[in-house]
């Protein structure tokens, strides 16, 4: 029993990280139909920025804020420079485009921080053991960050006028423009949000999973699978998908074979695309 709980706890934390990445995918796709493959790189970049900022003598919190701000700025710059100039953006074009962006980001990170992985110092709080299950303080931070950021993004898209206006851009682009919603501004905001969620994922996981220029690929892939689990349009679905994927990975690794951990995401992806292409969560409000 303790083993099962231990697997679940570790899976929850890892799933929290996937969920944050998945939210980034959703927040862009729901607005402009763009799949941003550089989503994982946001996390890598944020982790490395935070490590440098902390290394330069900043206390932890300002270092985190600097990292998140830098990455949000980078995300916005990417939208301006690589996404907006394209006249007829299709999902396929966006995939090819952002793949290029992701490669460029990786090269820049490799040049600046070198090939080796680094870890950020742990957030405050001490690890605890409950009923034989050890819980790392950092894992609680990851889950808290996921709940907070996920909740905020969900509230913005589903409950505020601005958020609904943003989603309208993808659902009814012509109608949205007719009633005065700026598509370009909407896309910019969605990239900013994706930058922030990706960055938060990067900084909260850095102390236990470490950061390097190349972690973005795996994180991005897992996050994408999580987003697909949630149907690519729902923030709640993305969070749920991320958590589910994380827990499932750990259960498979613990009870079946550790070597299969990374295969889980892709088996799940194939299964979901065959059985429920719309995702696990039913979202009635998404399509009119």
């Amino acid at each position, binding site marked *: 029993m303790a083993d099962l709980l231990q697997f679940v706890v570790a899976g929850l934390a890892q799933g929290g990280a996937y969920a944050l990445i998945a939210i980034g995918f959703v927040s862009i796709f729901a607005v402009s139909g763009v799949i941003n493959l550089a989503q994982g790189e946001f996390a890598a970049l944020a982790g490395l920025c935070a490590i440098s900022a902390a290394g330069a003598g900043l206390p932890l919190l300002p270092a985190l804020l600097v990292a998140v701000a830098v990455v949000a700025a980078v995300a916005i710059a990417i939208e301006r420079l690589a996404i907006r100039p394209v006249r007829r953006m299709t999902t396929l074009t966006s995939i090819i485009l952002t793949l290029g962006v992701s490669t460029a980001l990786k090269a820049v990170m490799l040049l600046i921080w070198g090939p080796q992985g680094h870890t950020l110092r742990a957030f405050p709080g001490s690890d605890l053991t409950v009923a034989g299950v050890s819980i790392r303080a950092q894992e609680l931070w990851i889950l808290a960050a996921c709940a907070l950021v996920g909740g905020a993004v969900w509230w913005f898209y589903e409950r505020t006028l601005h958020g609904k206006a943003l989603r309208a851009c993808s659902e009814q682009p012509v109608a949205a423009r007719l009633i005065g919603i700026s598509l370009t501004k909407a896309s910019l905001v969605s990239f900013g949000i994706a930058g922030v969620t990706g960055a938060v994922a990067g900084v909260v996981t850095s102390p236990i*999973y470490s950061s390097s220029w*190349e972690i973005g690929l795996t994180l991005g892939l897992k996050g994408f699978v999580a987003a697909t689990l949630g149907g690519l349009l729902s923030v709640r679905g993305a969070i749920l998908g991320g958590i589910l994927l994380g827990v499932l990975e750990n259960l498979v690794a613990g009870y079946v074979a550790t070597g299969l951990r990374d295969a889980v995401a892709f088996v799940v992806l194939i299964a979901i695309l065959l059985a429920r292409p719309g995702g696990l969560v039913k979202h009635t409000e998404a399509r009119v």
Partner: protein
Amino acid sequence: MRRRAVTATVAGFLLLTGCAEKSQETESGGSGTGDITIGAVLDITGAGATLGGPEKQALELLAEQTNAAGGVNGRKIKLIIEDNQSTEDGAAKAMTKLVSQDKADIIIGASRSGPSLAMGAIAESSKIPMISLAANVKITEGKRWVFKTAQNDAVVLQNIIDYSAAQGWKKLGLIRDASGYGEGVGEQLNELGKPKGVSVVRTEKFAPDATDFTAQMVNIRDAKADVNLIWGIPPAAGLAQKSYRQLGIKTPVFQSHGVGNQAFLDTAGDSADGVLLPLGRLLVADQLPDGDPQKQVLTKFASDFTAKYKTPPSTFAGHAYDAFKLAIDAFQKVGTDKAKVRDHLENVKGFVGVSGVFNMSPQDHSGLGKDALAIVKVEDGKWKLVDANRG
């Protein structure tokens, strides 16, 4: 439209001539006079980055020193380093380039076992001497042209078994790297451990780029072994070590010689305290008695390296040092004829290097025995010599 076609064609031609010129430039290698070309294929990026980085630094330092001292018999050393991105196909590609395009006289690398195995086949078919910096004994087994400077994993495992048996630890839990470095470790442990009654009771694997080890460690905890062995390289090995302590496992733990660098201590932090490992003597050079045969080589390399890079060398840098020095020794004595270099390397005896004292033979292209490693323990984030292991 037409202008574009023309520019494209011109650009194409420029590219082509560029290539042609490059291949002409590098004709000078081969044998006789002119520069001596040493090609190195290292894991500079990817999972082996903590190994390849210091190795690259060591090679550059040595090439600089050798050329400043007038080169080898008046010939300058030309060092070409390629990154294999820690992949097997990257290693094979880089090796082919060094052999056919750069006409290298010898190949050093790769940093890890998988890529080294991929390169070994090319060394055999193109008949070029190669010195690997990796551990797996299969790299040199049955090979004519391939040598290596890292201690064989069998040598490392023997040390672990002997130490465990002396402590009365019979049941061993293994958490190993799922790639080339960890391949066959469990089988070898069982084989070498049989005479002393030591056996593996549970094996768990992890990918070289894994970040979470909870599943493996919980299973290892349940196996209740007398001693556990984490077999991997940083950062994975460091994260695994963290997870081990995190889950409250009190069983004594060994790590492999794959963690002989500061990167391990940095990632593992406090959790590294108490870790035992068989390790080359470079990191504990200052604790060796003055009469130790390697002391002089070790302290000189450590101080030269630290002076240039402001950070102490890792044992991996030491493997690169040995490979470079073995190559230079051969070039000095027999020139750059590939067959002669190979024959010379095979007959190296009593060569004092950083990883140990090398005694090569046709049967053993690794040349290091059990005494090439000391037993070291991590205490307060520092390497501490437990047993110098000089017999």
